[in-house]
């Protein structure tokens, strides 16, 4: 049937043209556009948003992003973190946030995932102080910060997760650890400790 509609010579010509197009596209796309090591301009993904909550609304909040304001509306599938993953978050004015989601045509932003007051630091432990209910310690990395950890924190040793034992922490002064924490009333409460 095809042979009757498209002459053989025209068919071969079209096929050769397609192959040439694919070859040129592959050359441009892989070897030129995406060359590793080549200097390139910065990319700012539109899905990313970070700022501070300045006003609460029925569907989310208004945020300050640098010098501008942005309306953020929770979607049905929004996942939110503030120490734990929660559906209904006690968000407060002044909370900082980091989100990955979708800017909408009406100007609002709907986060797929949003983190409030999250902190991450890795470095060497110092000033370790233990107690029956909580331990405090400083981490010296890009900056120095003091953390509080209680039994709600998880310890990840690479061999699995376990609850943090304040009286018997799995590290000593000088150890290299990473801490993910939530900032609550200017206290950094550890949620996950990687040792």
């Amino acid at each position: 049937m095809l042979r009757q509609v498209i002459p053989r010579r025209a068919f071969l010509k079209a096929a050769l043209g397609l192959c040439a197009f694919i070859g040129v596209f592959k050359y441009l796309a892989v070897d030129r556009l995406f060359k590793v090591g080549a200097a390139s301009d910065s990319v700012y993904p539109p899905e990313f948003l970070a700022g501070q909550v300045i006003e609460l609304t029925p569907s989310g909040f208004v945020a300050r992003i640098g010098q501008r304001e942005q309306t953020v509306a929770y979607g049905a599938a929004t996942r939110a973190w503030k120490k734990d993953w929660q559906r209904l978050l006690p968000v407060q004015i002044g909370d900082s946030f980091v989100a990955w989601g979708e800017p909408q045509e009406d100007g609002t932003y709907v986060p797929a995932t949003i983190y409030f007051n999250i902190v991450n630091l890795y470095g060497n432990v110092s000033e370790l102080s233990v107690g029956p209910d909580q331990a405090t310690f400083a981490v010296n990395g890009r900056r120095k910060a003091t953390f509080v950890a209680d039994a709600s924190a998880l310890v990840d040793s690479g061999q699995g997760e376990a609850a943090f034992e304040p009286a018997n922490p799995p590290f000593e002064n000088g150890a290299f650890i990473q801490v993910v924490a939530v900032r609550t009333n200017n206290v950094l409460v550890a949620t996950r400790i990687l040792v």
Partner: protein
Amino acid sequence: MTIKLGSSTWYNDCNGSNGACKDCDNAALHAAYPHLGTGCIYDSNCSLSMCAHSCGDRIHVLNQCSGGVGQYVTIHDCFPLQSDGCNPPVSCFDQNPPLVDLTEAAFLAIGGDLAQGRVPVQVVC
């Protein structure tokens, strides 16, 4: 082309005009890398085995979990700390010393979970 296996963490200390290259930005797909030609080299074993790069160079970071999301990121800072060697992770949950530190935007772009803190990656440099 060199492929390195290790972990990636995230950081949010960039303000658009700081970092080793004086232009790192939390909202951009930027990375802190341990072996910059500008003289920033951390850790004698791991970092020296990674390719030397300059500010603005592009590397590819592939999340080895979460379905293997990859992203090109550009180097705008120097990775500050490595505790020991850069042994490759053996599973999605292994926590080896990080090879590269990503901005929040870059970490989320490869499907990382900020609350987990670290993700195993393959870095092509």
